[in-house]
């Protein structure tokens, strides 16, 4: 114990000695062989450097150029929502077109009304109600809108026939 106390007088010497042995442990014999064997087993060095990264970046850019317009195109609203028949589809059944024949009959080859799935932005409840009230207020106008053709083809109008005036009755 006295010997140890004597040595503790020079603490730095002890610390130096401890640090020396702390880091002086030698590896097991044959370290070089084991390192070379593991390197040999792992394979050849990569000679291609940065080239694959450039190829990957180019491929990603190409995919982006092709994919982005496709994504935006599919996200656009369908044209059907802009056409009157699509709007008319939302009219409530409680306000049907009047049974009385219109004076001017439109051609029957109008485009079929858009289905619900085609309408990207269905009308709000308040808008539907407003349209329903308009329909009941002006049934003939709405009926004309409903039957309006969506194509550019000319509208066929039946010739107007006016019965001759009975003059004899006046006499």
């Amino acid at each position, binding site marked *: 114990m006295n010997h140890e106390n004597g040595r503790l007088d020079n603490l730095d010497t002890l610390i130096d000695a*401890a640090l020396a042995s702390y880091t002086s442990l030698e590896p097991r014999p044959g370290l070089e062989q084991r390192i070379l064997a593991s390197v*040999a087993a792992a394979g*050849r060095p990569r000679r291609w450097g940065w080239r694959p990264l450039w190829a990957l970046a180019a491929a990603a850019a190409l995919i982006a150029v092709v994919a982005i317009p496709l994504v935006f195109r599919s996200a656009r609203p369908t044209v059907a929502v802009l056409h009157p028949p699509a709007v008319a589809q939302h009219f409530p059944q409680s306000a049907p077109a009047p049974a009385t024949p219109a004076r001017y009959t439109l051609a029957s080859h109008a485009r079929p009304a858009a289905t619900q799935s085609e309408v990207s932005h269905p009308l709000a409840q308040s808008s539907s109600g407003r349209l329903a009230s308009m329909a009941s207020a002006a049934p003939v106008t709405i009926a004309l809108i409903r039957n309006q053709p969506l194509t550019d083809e000319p509208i066929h109008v039946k010739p107007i026939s006016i019965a001759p005036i009975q003059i004899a009755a006046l006499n």
Partner: protein
Amino acid sequence: MPNAIFSVTPRAPVPEGAGGGARRAASFAAFVERHSRFVYRIALAVARNPQDAEDAAQETFLQIFRGDRWEEIEDEQGYLARVAWRLAVRRRKPRALEQELSPEMHSAISSPEASPEQSAMDRQLEVWLHARIDALPEKLRQPLALAALGELKLVEVAKILRLPEGTVRRRIHTARQKLRQELAERSKP
């Protein structure tokens, strides 16, 4: 095995070089021969476990071989020390103090010249000191251990740790001061 292995010396298997030439294979074998012990010691100073240190040393050389630039490294020791240190830090696991010193390390620190009693006393003190060094915070222990290797200048230790040289010097000083205090307290009756 897909890649051919040939020997430069009868006892050292050498991987085929990047160009497939014996010159590069021999160059890499010489590179390993020159630095393997140093790399191992760096890794051991950080990982504190012989098996982890050897694994880190192998991984260090494997990375350098794959990088295929070992002939272009200017400061070979500094570069290897940085790679080995980084890989060894990854392998260092938090462990209990009594598990820190492996049996190999226990046996390595006894002095062969001392008497059995003296040797036992020295060994006990040395093991205790090693445990105290291991118990230091990593930011103090690593500069202390790297500087204690005796193969690196302070500026190189600073480069490895990516710290200013002044910070490294201060940390080593603090670490030694802590050890001194603990040693002094231990010597009190």
